[in-house]
């Protein structure tokens, strides 16, 4: 089977998961039922098969262009979510409300966009898999930090309004949101740092220059600086909670821009090369 078939099947299973999680949230039941978990695992297995297939089809690590980038990011986010659910002492089901729709949307984008043609020698070698793996796991961790930060703000607003309702029993305690977000930022920041370093080295190897002054480089560095500020301020002053959540959200906006710009621009660049 071609990677497209796998990807369509993946989309169907993720759609089931996403729909189910949202419905469960609306009826205020437990978020993850056995059905959701089963659909997720089958979807994830198909997704893995799709990526493996795509890797052999493309002849390089499937992370270039919107089609491959979206698919790989969805896979990474799903993997991180599954790992958190498995290994976290208290499972964080509410995260599913962010992860499932995102994974569904990304796989949908991947299904709707054409795979970029192969051929650029830049894509051979080890820089592509190393740099993108670091970057994508970094994005996934920072996405978790972002989502948990949003959950913090929602939860705080509900508690402050003195009439906790919809999300009251879905979202974990403020303290847990805060510490989890801080942890995810630390992990994501470390990966982002390594991704930036490998990116610079790659750029040097290809263009002979470390810095090409592209918007994605600027936004990556901006995100990096914002995360440095966030981590330092948290450590030095015990700052946290609401303001940390807001800063984390702002920093993630820069990360999101970096990802989108990279995949749209590389898609066009690679598409233009004959």
């Amino acid at each position, binding site marked *: 089977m071609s990677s497209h078939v796998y990807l369509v099947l993946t989309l169907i299973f993720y759609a089931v998961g996403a729909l189910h999680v949202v419905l469960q949230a609306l009826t*205020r*039941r*437990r978020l993850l039922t056995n059905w959701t978990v089963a659909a997720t695992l089958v979807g994830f297995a198909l997704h893995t098969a799709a990526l493996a297939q795509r890797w052999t089809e493309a002849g390089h690590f499937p992370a270039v262009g919107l089609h491959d980038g979206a698919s790989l990011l969805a896979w990474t986010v799903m993997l991180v979510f599954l790992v958190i659910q498995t290994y976290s002492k208290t499972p964080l089901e509410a995260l599913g409300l962010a992860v499932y729709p995102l994974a569904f949307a990304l796989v949908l984008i991947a299904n709707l966009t054409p795979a970029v043609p192969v051929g650029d020698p830049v894509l051979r070698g080890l820089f592509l898999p190393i740099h993108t793996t670091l970057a994508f796991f970094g994005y996934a961790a920072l996405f978790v930090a972002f989502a948990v930060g949003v959950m913090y703000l929602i*939860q705080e607003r509900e*508690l*402050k309004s*003195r*009439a*906790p*309702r919809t999300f*009251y*029993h879905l979202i*974990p*305690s*403020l*303290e*847990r949101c805060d510490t989890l977000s801080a942890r995810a930022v630390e992990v994501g920041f470390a990966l982002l740092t390594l991704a930036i370093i490998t990116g610079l080295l790659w750029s040097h190897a290809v263009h002979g220059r470390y810095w090409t002054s592209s918007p994605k480089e600027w936004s990556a560095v901006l995100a990096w600086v914002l995360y440095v500020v966030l981590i330092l301020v948290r450590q030095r*002053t*015990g*700052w*946290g*909670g*609401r*303001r*940390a959540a807001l800063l984390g959200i702002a920093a993630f906006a820069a990360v999101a821009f970096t990802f989108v710009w990279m995949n749209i621009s590389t898609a066009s660049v690679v598409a233009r090369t004959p």
Partner: protein
Amino acid sequence: MIVVVGVSHRTAPLPVRESLAFPRESLADALVRMKAEAGALEAMILSTCNRVELYVREDEAAGAGTLEGFLCRYHRRDALTLQPHLYRLSDTDAIRHAFRVAASLESMVIGEPQILGQVKDAYQAAEEAGTLGASLNALRNRSLAAAKRVRTQTGIGRNAVSVSYVAVELARKIFGELKDKNVLLVGAGKMSELAAKHLVRSGGRATVLGGRTFEKAAELAAALGGKAAPFEALRDELARTDIVISGTGAPGIVIQEADVEIARAGRRGRHARPLFLIDIAVPRDIDPAVGKLGGVFLYDLDDLKAVAEANLRGRLKEAAAAEALVDREVREFLGWQKAREAVPLLTELRRRAEDIRRAELDKAKKRLGPLTPEQEAALEAATTAIVNKLLHPPTVHLKEAARESDAPEQLSLIRKLLGL
């Protein structure tokens, strides 16, 4: 047939229920006596503060009223005064009742979690007393499993529905773990004591601020395993604490906005840590403006009541789903029970067929004379196959028929037809 006789919060006031309660120590003795006196095959007693119920499996022949008689004699109560409070359910109704009680659908506060443990203990006690047999044991397994499913699959027991528990739940929502969180009590009232006890049990450390009577504060602090401080230390204590429970009888505001602002400014390093203030005094102790400060959560008594009421409404909504689930489980249990009634008939049928097969096989062997082992095995296999193939459809049909409502008639017809 399973029968239940008892009183509950729906049929009897507390004094009546109290007078009929079975203390844990005398339960074994009561079970044995009840089984003997009521002529029951199996017996179980569920005795909680909201209900006293006697469960038995008895012969169809046992007359009505024996259980009621035992209850009156045991507690030396007059049957006539007790009669209006008692209910008696039998067969399907009794089974349904047992499922509903375990699932907390019959509880005073629907969805309360204690009942499951109480039912478990009651069966356990009956098992230890040796009065539990196969039928009640099956009822135990199925009803407890159903109750657990109700708890996990519906939201019936989800949120707190009493003011003091709501306070604890909110504290958990804010702080997660309550271990080593500082709890500051301002004023020593009944309600603040109750909420503080819950918090301390979850690992919180209590400090009690004394008002005009310091002794009272010291007493409460000792009871909570915490310390007492004079009221003048309010601002210092506010700077240290995570949770404040205020319930003084003061006519005006006791904790001003400035108190909290200054205290929070003094919290270096933990500046962003939230502060949860619970004002259960009427009139209120804490300036409502405090609730607008960043990182501060202020709930007064009405807020807590509103949350509790909303939670209760949520539970009642979930109760419909729980009812449906219990209905399904009860139907399944009844079907399973009926299918079991067909089992003796089935074994009898099988044994009869096997006897005939053996007899005919022996006759045939005598006529045929000596056979090789292969020939003998072939004969054996052929006859067994005939019997199995002939019996397969009636076996399936019997199991199905047993689940139908007219099972007894059907079973007796089958008995006649097969000459069993």
